[in-house]
């Protein structure tokens, strides 16, 4: 048994290599999808795909995406810095607001919950580098499959309300966010983020609750920023400081990381890097099949219900289309009820496979502006491996 499994594995590895060989310079394909969850569970989490323990990097497996809400214990985890406090006292925790404001504020968790209007938003949190393993040659950075994303119902207070209480000075222009995580080495740039004041709208919240529970420790307990429609690079965790400035501060994680070529295709080649660059900001339209998964065995002449989730940056999903003939013809999936424009829209589509052998199922989302997902191989390379949104495909075995 063990031997057979070993052969199976080495065969899969060999064919992955062969595939990589046939790809020319700077192309894309389906991201890596055969990684297994670890045998070790992290605090408040089920075992997830585990790239690093320090700092913790955990990915949700594909199965997670057959539901519109991602359970807290299956939600992906992404930190940049290794020194993360392991104990937080909710009774004494304070968030500090300072800089170009009339009054500095130091707000406790209790005051946050009592003295401000409480608001909720269901929103997708997706890493800009989600699905990065689709890019060849390898775009440096964590080689995520599809699971560096999730959707939760966040509860907290509006960032705008906090800033109004502090009173913005006339020349205020940027808002800086810092969490309690720290670099191990004093000269390493910390993970500090900045937002231009004009990006501030009523949807941006400082959240303390996720799906009706306190934020899990690994998702940023006790407070994190939630910026619906935007990639998660600025959703700062363990948020402790909000500093308003009149000028942009030069920061590594703003100036170098999380940027794409500033041209129409947001693309370049490894030989010809494109400068200038721009921040990744809002999410493009995307869908992922949660069920079935690659290599699921299904019976012929039996109904198979394909399930998954679709989302964009807040315009909302108009349609999800399914193809079982490599994208030549498409059928329209049923969409579940709308949980808000920033949320996952769950979809389902019943098929009845009649032919034995391999069957590839594809899903393509179209948003209300008419923007649709391109095929995976049509996506152009960028050096950071950001914003992949190729049409998803899973291949099942019909017996």
């Amino acid at each position, binding site marked *: 048994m063990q031997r057979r499994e070993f052969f199976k594995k080495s065969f899969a590895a060999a064919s992955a290599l062969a595939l990589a060989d046939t790809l020319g310079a700077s192309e894309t394909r389906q991201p890596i999808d055969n990684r297994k969850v670890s045998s070790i569970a992290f*605090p408040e989490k089920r075992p997830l795909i*585990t790239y690093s*323990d320090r700092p913790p990097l955990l990915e949700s497996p594909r199965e997670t995406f057959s539901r519109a809400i991602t359970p807290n214990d299956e939600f992906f985890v992404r930190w940049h810095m290794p020194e993360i406090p*392991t104990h937080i006292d*909710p009774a004494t925790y304070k968030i500090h607001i300072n800089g170009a404001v009339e009054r500095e504020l130091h707000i406790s968790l209790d005051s946050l919950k009592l003295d401000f209007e409480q608001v909720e938003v269901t929103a997708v949190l997706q890493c800009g580098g989600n699905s990065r393993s689709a890019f060849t040659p*390898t775009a440096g950075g964590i080689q995520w499959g599809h699971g560096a994303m999730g959707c939760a119902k966040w509860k907290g207070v509006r960032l705008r309300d906090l800033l109004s209480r502090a009173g913005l000075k006339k020349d205020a222009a940027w808002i800086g966010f810092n969490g309690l995580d720290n670099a191990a080495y004093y000269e*390493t*740039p910390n993970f500090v983020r900045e937002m231009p004041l004009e990006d501030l709208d009523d949807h941006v919240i400082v959240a303390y609750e996720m799906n009706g529970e306190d934020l899990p*420790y690994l998702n940023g307990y*006790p407070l994190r920023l939630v910026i619906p429609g935007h990639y998660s690079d600025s959703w700062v965790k363990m948020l402790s400081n909000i500093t308003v400035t009149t000028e942009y501060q030069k920061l590594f994680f703003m100036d170098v990381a999380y940027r794409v070529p500033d041209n129409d295709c947001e693309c370049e080649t490894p030989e010809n890097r494109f400068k200038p660059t721009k921040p990744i900001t809002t999410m493009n339209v995307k869908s992922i099949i949660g069920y079935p998964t690659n290599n699921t065995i299904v019976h012929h002449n039996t109904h198979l219900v394909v399930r998954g989730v679709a989302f964009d940056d807040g315009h909302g999903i108009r349609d999800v289309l399914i193809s079982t003939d490599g994208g030549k013809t498409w059928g329209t999936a049923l969409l579940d009820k709308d949980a808000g424009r920033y949320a996952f829209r769950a979809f389902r589509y019943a098929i009845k496979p009649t032919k034995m052998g391999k069957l590839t199922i594809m899903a393509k989302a179209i948003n209300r502006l008419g923007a649709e997902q391109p095929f995976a191989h049509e996506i152009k390379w960028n050096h950071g491996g950001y914003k992949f949104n190729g049409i998803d495909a899973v291949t099942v075995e019909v017996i």
Partner: protein
Amino acid sequence: MKILLTALVLTASALMAQVNEPVEVPYIAYEIKTGKGFDAVQANCLTCHSFGYIINQGPQARAFWLEKTVKMVDAFKAPITPEDVQSIAEYLFTYYGNGEEK
């Protein structure tokens, strides 16, 4: 009765308060190949993150590994001597290389 109720509500929502002690994040021993140059890797590449970061990149070209090692010094200010940078890049290509120069 009322007091009891609020107490219940509080414990039900405040998970971290329930466990009022430090969180333990498990340690994972990422299997990494040993060989020429590994000493320099062990001395320099564990300060800021696990070996998981290295392994996760998959087999890569010589230029990729040199660029990454230099990035750790230039962007993240890792205090690594030029000699160690060379032997680390050499090690990475030998054990996690794809045979290509570029």
